[in-house]
């Protein structure tokens, strides 16, 4: 069991979301950075539900030693004061505390335990979906049930996805409603991730006018999916996130491919983003492969109490052994 000692705002339990309710108006939801879940899976096996924090500080205590995986946006992390590296799985000893503070890199960070947190399931998932009134943000005093398990420390090579960059798009049924010149201008525009962004969507800003379809449209509301780049009335694009509505009437100029959604959601305010249309074959080929993991060897520079450690304990004299 993991106890929440202190916790900033909007920290929630997330997993891969709940499929099957789109027809009733409920989006899948789930972790904003699915690659962080892939990384945690690679470190610990199938992890299930973990903690997602949008950069909010978090302090946890283990009741029973357990290995924890730290993935997604790197935070400054320590275990009982000892700095620990990000994108690793390391063991939090019984009664030890894990302290996480924001580093300014990326947006969404994750803490997983082997087998996942066994919190309440709602409609087939443990993921909080606050806009839909499912689940609550974590608060101090919460106790997250799990099955403590100690595994070998490991590190994972995370894909580069923080700080913005290129987002690849597929066309939507509304893409062709935009004039060719507008689509070309869209592909040439450097966008900035706006301050306004959450699990519903991320607003972008740019120099120049908004992007508009040929005629004033009165589109019949139709399905929208996470990744859709929706143009609101003033032509400002929003990249829709895991808790977006299920239908909408604004035109979608394109949809970000699944391989690039973590990059879209991890872009911090001020990060630069560009778009390029690709084919379905390219989108499918870009899907992530299982991340590479390797044994974790502690860097002596991270060990604050190096001099106090008995580094040569257990070494015996061969001669003594003979006698």
């Amino acid at each position, binding site marked *: 069991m993991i106890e929440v000692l202190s916790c900033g705002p909007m920290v929630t339990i997330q997993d891969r979301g709940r499929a099957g309710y789109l027809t009733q108006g409920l989006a899948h939801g789930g972790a904003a950075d699915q690659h962080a879940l892939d990384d945690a899976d690679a470190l610990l096996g199938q992890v299930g539900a973990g903690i997602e924090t949008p950069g909010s500080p978090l302090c946890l205590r283990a009741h029973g030693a357990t290995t924890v995986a730290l993935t997604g946006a790197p935070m400054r992390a320590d275990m009982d004061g000892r700095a620990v590296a990000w994108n690793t799985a390391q063991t939090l000893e019984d009664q030890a505390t894990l302290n996480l503070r924001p580093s300014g890199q990326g947006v969404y960070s994750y803490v997983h335990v082997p087998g996942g947190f066994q919190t309440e399931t709602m409609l087939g998932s443990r993921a909080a979906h606050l806009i839909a*009134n499912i689940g609550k943000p974590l608060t101090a005093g919460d106790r997250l049930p799990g099955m403590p398990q100690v595994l070998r420390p490991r590190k994972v090579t995370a894909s580069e996805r923080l700080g913005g960059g290129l987002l690849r798009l597929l066309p939507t049924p509304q893409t062709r409603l935009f004039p060719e010149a507008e689509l070309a201008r869209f592909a040439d525009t450097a966008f900035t991730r706006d301050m306004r962004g959450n699990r519903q969507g991320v607003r972008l800003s740019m120099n120049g006018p908004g992007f508009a379809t040929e005629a004033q449209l009165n589109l019949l509301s139709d399905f929208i999916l996470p990744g859709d780049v929706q143009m609101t009335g003033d032509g400002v694009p929003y990249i829709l996130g895991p808790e977006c509505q299920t239908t909408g009437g604004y035109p979608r100029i394109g949809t970000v491919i699944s391989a690039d959604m973590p990059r879209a959601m991890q872009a911090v305010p001020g990060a630069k983003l560009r778009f390029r249309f690709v084919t*379905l074959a390219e989108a499918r080929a870009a899907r992530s492969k299982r991340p590479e993991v390797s044994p974790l060897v502690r860097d002596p520079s991270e060990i604050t109490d190096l001099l106090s450690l008995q580094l040569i304990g257990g070494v015996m004299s061969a001669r003594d052994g003979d006698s």
Partner: protein
Amino acid sequence: MSEHFPRIEPLGEAALLLRFAPTLDDRANRACVAFRAGLEAEPITGVVETASSLGSVLVRYEGDPEALEAALTDRLNARDWSQIVPPARRLWRIPCSYGGDDGPQLEEAAAMAGLSQADAIAALSSARVRVLALGFVPGMPYTGILPPEWDLPRQTGLTPKVPEGALVTAVRQLVLFGTEAPTGWRQVGRTLFGCFNPSRDRPIALTPGDEVIFPAVSMSELRDEAAADPDRHGGATFEVLP
């Protein structure tokens, strides 16, 4: 640009969208609901989720979209889906308090429809509408299609907020709000239905194709019936349609 319907096109990298009409159309919506029900009853290999909206069906899949598109095209052409009655529909009766504080724009909406308030209540409370689609928030129904006199435009200015449970109207539809929100639709009544309640056995009660009547009750009857409802559905009842 001319488009032919129904049409199938990709939506993202793992879904196909079958659009039956470009504008709201009762026949097309009936076809959406029936076609989706058919996919649920007789699944096609590779399909992992289906959903219907006002004028389209979403088909999420794993694997090869070409084989799936061919199979969907065959199904589409096999019959006139607008004539198929989907199975296991429910007829809901959701009590509604019309006018007054519970329906502050009833008078305005009635006048636009060319009716007295009493006639408007009689018309809306006896109309048997279908759930065309659910959206905006989980379980929130867009129902219709009302007679032509209810083809009211949305307000140009928004009502700053209507309460959860508000019954609002525009464009020949009645919408039951699932949350407190601003809206351009006119509020004619109030229910205490609760579109989505995670603590209920069935968190989302309605499904596309269900039918609904909003019978008129007084302000106090609405609250009393809701308080006495063990299912916490604001006093609503349903029967399964044959």
